[in-house]
């Protein structure tokens, strides 16, 4: 049986969106009826949902479960095939769902399993064709067979390539440092994921459809989201949001293979770790201090950190509802702390191995570090207090690069007006998109201020920017903030 899974990570204003996933009013009563073995009522509600939304596979899949349980094998097979037509793609669920035990004894099931890799390959091609119809010929369409991703990008060739490289770099880091279980999994059984990097207009259409207008209008800062059921990642922010959401893709691959559902603090904490990455002096690409660690440092200094035991057992509604920013920041920092001690992959392995006794992951965390929860809270607080602070949005430094910048999500801050001669001399014009500063990538305003940390007024640094499809660079002077 399935519930809709929709994950959003919005760098700034998460709260409203993470809750906006109640698409079908009959979903909960149907599950309740099913649990009471009132199969007629459950099927009736699911059928209503399926009739109303011809794209939805969740209700059809659930009807198949119900039929299989009732011994109607033919009905179960038909509904499974229909669910697949509608987009269902998780072979692991098919293999392990206890409700489908009877269905798994059919020839249909054996044939499906044998043909699954071919089926997935055909599906991604069909999905790409469908995307071409929606987004048109001005997007560019590519596939990454290694990580089983299809890209539909509204950006120019170079920006699109940069985004694909960013995804690969994130995957390489994640598989080396967290998901060692995904090393060498090339059996062709992971569903392909469609990564859409849309125009602003397409993004708004998608966001309104997915979350509803009320929630979208709450923020102009929604960067993107990954909808696991649809196997679709949509983001207009090519920096932290792209990395965060793509991390969810890998995490779901790992969890689906293991047949596990990980709690929100692990999902969001791990995905947040790649939001801010930097090159170390040794040339490694590693999680960096950011506006999120700033929060945790401040909260640690004020003795306001939530005990780890409470963080680890928090349900999603509370985690993303009441104090979302501190919960995201806190979980991210816990995994940075583990990573700094070289124990992140060990934790994930211990946790997934002992998942059935410890689904929240608290025991695995404490065992990996060899401490009690009280000791952990104390050590973690001291570590957090010592974190380096960086500049961030909302309390930025009195520094700038002599331009007025637009702050809406995209491939970088957009120059609206040039106010300082140095920016003019560097060749900047209104409409240019700043994509890099001081040899570091700059995709949003938090990154912009973060890379200004440690720089001084009057200093000259490298700037990279995009003017329509042309990518340019120059030297620019640090000025007072506009």
């Amino acid at each position, binding site marked *: 049986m399935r519930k809709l899974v929709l994950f959003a990570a919005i760098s700034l204003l998460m709260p*409203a969106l993470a809750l906006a996933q109640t698409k079908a009013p009959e979903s909960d009563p149907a599950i309740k009826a099913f649990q009471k073995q009132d199969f007629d009522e459950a099927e009736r509600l699911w059928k209503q949902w399926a009739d109303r939304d011809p794209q939805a596979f969740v209700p059809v899949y659930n009807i198949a479960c119900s039929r299989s349980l009732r011994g109607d094998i033919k009905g179960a097979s038909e509904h499974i095939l229909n669910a697949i037509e509608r987009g269902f793609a998780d072979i692991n669920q098919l293999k392990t769902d206890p409700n489908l035990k009877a269905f798994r004894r059919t020839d249909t099931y054996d044939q499906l399993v044998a043909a699954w890799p071919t089926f997935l390959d055909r599906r991604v091609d069909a999905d790409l064709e469908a995307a071409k119809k929606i987004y048109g010929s001005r997007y560019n369409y590519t596939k990454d067979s290694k990580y089983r991703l299809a890209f539909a990008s509204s950006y120019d060739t170079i920006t699109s390539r940069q985004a694909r490289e960013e995804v690969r770099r994130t995957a390489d880091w994640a598989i080396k440092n967290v998901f060692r279980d995904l090393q060498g999994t090339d059996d062709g059984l992971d569903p392909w994921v469609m990564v859409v990097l849309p125009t602003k207009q397409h993004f708004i259409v998608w966001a309104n459809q997915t979350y509803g207008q009320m929630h979208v*209008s*709450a923020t102009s800062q929604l960067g993107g989201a990954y909808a696991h059921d649809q196997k679709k990642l949509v983001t207009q922010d090519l920096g932290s949001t792209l990395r965060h959401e793509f991390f969810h893709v890998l995490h779901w691959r790992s969890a689906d293979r293991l047949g596990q559902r990980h709690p929100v603090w692990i999902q969001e904490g791990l995905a947040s770790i790649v939001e801010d990455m930097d090159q170390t002096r040794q040339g490694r690409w590693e999680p960096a201090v950011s506006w999120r660690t700033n929060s945790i440092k401040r909260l640690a200094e004020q003795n306001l950190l939530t005990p780890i035991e409470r963080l680890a057992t928090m349900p999603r509604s*509370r985690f993303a509802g*009441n104090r979302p920013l501190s919960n995201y920041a806190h979980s991210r920092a816990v995994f940075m702390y583990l990573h700094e001690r070289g124990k992140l992959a060990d934790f994930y392995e211990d946790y997934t191995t002992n998942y059935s006794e410890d689904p929240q992951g608290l025991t695995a965390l404490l065992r990996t570090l060899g401490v009690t929860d009280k000791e952990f809270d104390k050590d973690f607080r001291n570590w957090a207090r010592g974190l380096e602070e960086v500049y961030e949005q*909302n309390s*930025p430094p009195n520094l700038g690069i002599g331009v*007025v910048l637009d702050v809406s999500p995209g491939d970088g801050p957009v120059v*609206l*007006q040039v106010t300082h001669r140095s920016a003019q001399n560097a060749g900047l014009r209104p409409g240019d998109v700043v994509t890099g500063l001081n040899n570091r990538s700059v995709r949003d305003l938090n990154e912009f201020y973060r890379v200004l940390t440690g720089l001084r007024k009057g200093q000259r640094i490298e700037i990279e920017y995009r003017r329509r499809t042309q990518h340019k660079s120059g030297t620019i002077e640090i000025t007072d903030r506009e």
Partner: protein
Amino acid sequence: MSGIRGKPRLALFISGGGRTALNIADEIDTGKLIAEIAVVVASRQCDGVERCRERGLDVIIAKGVIPEDRLAQILSEYRVDLVCLAGYLKLLPIPDGWQGRILNIHPSLLPKFGGPGMFGDLVHTAVLEAGEQNSGCTVHICDGEFDRGPIVLQRTCEVVQGDTPETLAARVFRAECEAYPEAIRTTLKTLGFDADQ
């Protein structure tokens, strides 16, 4: 004062989307503003009501202009220390003892483009029509009239070529996100709350 009074308690007053209120909640959440939100008061059933409730905040709806005694009652019931109007479109009476403890934020550089009927995009349209080079926001103490009273702080931003009321509003809102928490911190200090408690 620290340790005796605990964290200062805010009441936020809204009439629309509640973005300003949520930004204050974010500032508290990330440890930048040491305070707690005691209650959110909405002048009508608006999107902000639902958003604030999703955030776990206590919200009450008090339609229309709140009578002075009702307001005094709410503020004492929720043990409020400071009132912050956050996109609140009704005139708020000032109960006895609340002079200097009610803040408002306005999306222009007051005294320009303020007063009755000057709210939301109407302000930004007026700024653009007047050909201003700068706009910004003002946090001031309420004195019982629209957009009047001593200014706590202002933050400016540029008006750029090609601005529409929407693009200017977005830039001014960013300025508001910085200005309001800072003004709240300043005011709390003058009310005797120690920022480094």
